[in-house]
């Protein structure tokens, strides 16, 4: 078998596996690498076919229950609150200075305290590009964290670094307000990541859900040359009784179920 045929065979194997059985983290990294090397542009072809076949099998649709619809509407409200920030920070001009989001291109606003030279470069691009939006976002995030800290019910916990190489010399904290479900992570010294390969992901362990099912708190990146980064927490489900915040290193795009083999920092919350 030629190298090209071997390559095609492996790509096909992984694409079919992803569409029908899911991929583990290392397979996903391998597929991203292979697709990145190739001229192929339709990496979703089998997933789309699988989805069309699924639609063909659904038959008559069952109405969405009213209680679930109400929950989704509330969730939609929370989501739309974040939308203006997402729309702005996903503008390409802001990319180099902004921790990125999932492959969707939707990104959390993040405040970055940079060395002086980097501030100058960032300020120049901001002036040219988005007429003051980006600095305001930084201030928003920093101010948001400070305002949250000013609330009596907000908890603040220092990160505990693990033995993971990415955690060497890391410090910072997580702040979380249970009533409003708003929180921020602050990092100093966390290793930068290549968003095409791996991304950091926050997990919120909820006593009400058990250790096996932590809530996904969002995917984020640490850019190079940043002395401090503040990132808003975007919990995907309501957190009822937070027990611990943990950051893992995952394949690009994050995961639904972490293998937990790259836990970088932890912050426990007393009951």
């Amino acid at each position, binding site marked *: 078998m030629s190298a090209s045929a071997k390559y095609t065979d492996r790509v096909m194997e992984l694409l079919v596996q992803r569409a029908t059985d899911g991929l583990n983290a290392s397979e996903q990294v391998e597929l991203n690498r292979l697709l990145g090397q190739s001229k192929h542009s339709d990496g979703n072809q089998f997933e*789309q076919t699988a989805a*069309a*076949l699924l639609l063909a099998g659904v038959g008559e649709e*069952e109405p969405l229950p009213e209680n679930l619809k109400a929950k989704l509407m509330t969730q939609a409200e929370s989501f739309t609150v974040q939308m203006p920030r997402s729309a702005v920070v*996903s503008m390409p001009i802001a990319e180099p200075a902004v921790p990125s989001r999932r492959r969707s291109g939707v990104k959390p606003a993040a405040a970055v305290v940079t060395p002086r030279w980097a501030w100058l470069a960032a300020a120049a691009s901001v002036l040219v590009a988005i007429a003051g939006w980006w600095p305001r976002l930084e201030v928003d995030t920093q101010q948001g964290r400070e305002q949250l800290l000013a609330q009596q019910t907000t908890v603040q916990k220092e990160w505990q670094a693990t033995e993971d190489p990415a955690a060497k010399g890391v410090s910072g904290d997580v702040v979380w307000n249970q009533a409003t479900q708003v929180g921020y992570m602050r990092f100093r010294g966390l290793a930068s990541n290549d968003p095409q390969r791996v991304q950091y992901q926050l997990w919120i362990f909820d006593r009400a859900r058990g250790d096996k099912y932590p809530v996904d708190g969002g995917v984020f990146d640490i850019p190079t040359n940043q002395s401090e980064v503040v990132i808003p927490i975007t919990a995907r489900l309501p957190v009822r009784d937070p027990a611990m915040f943990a950051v893992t290193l995952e394949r690009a795009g994050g995961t639904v179920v972490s293998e937990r083999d790259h836990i970088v920092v932890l912050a426990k919350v007393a009951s």
Partner: protein
Amino acid sequence: MTDFVLVKVAQGNARAVRECIDQFGSLIWSIARRLTRTRADAEDAVQEIFTDIWRSAGRFDPTQGSEKVFVATIARRRLIDRLRRVGHRDLTDSIDDVESLTWSDPGTRAEICAEAQTAARAVMQLRPEQRQVLELGLLQGLSHSEISEALKMPLGTVKTMMRRGLIQVRHLMGVEGDVAAEEAQS
């Protein structure tokens, strides 16, 4: 002005975020009910899927397929992840009082999109054993090893049948992609 609700979501239209629930809520719920064990699981899954849909709306490209296929792709991916998280399940496990999915000739059913109708017609042309492997994987959500166990078939054969079946369906749908086409030529 676009008619695609996903494009509006990607443009930051708050009303469109809610419209998504009206437009796709029943579809996502119906899929989730059939690919989760319990009603509570399905409710959690639907909430996760909608967050994914809103966040991924910017990746929707009307030239690549319909909105229904796009949201079903996201739903399937999320539900497979959840099924794998729960782990191995026995084929005799009951899935709450919900009918299993199956393929049949779509006829002129108005409620399913054109891609789904074409896909249904294509899959009905496969050999019964090949269709069964696809059905267990795609409609029942079984992993390759679970299918292998259920059908007493070597794992490698399941993987091959799954791969050839999907390629054949795409061929019959007339949407062969570049990787598949390359393999077909080699």
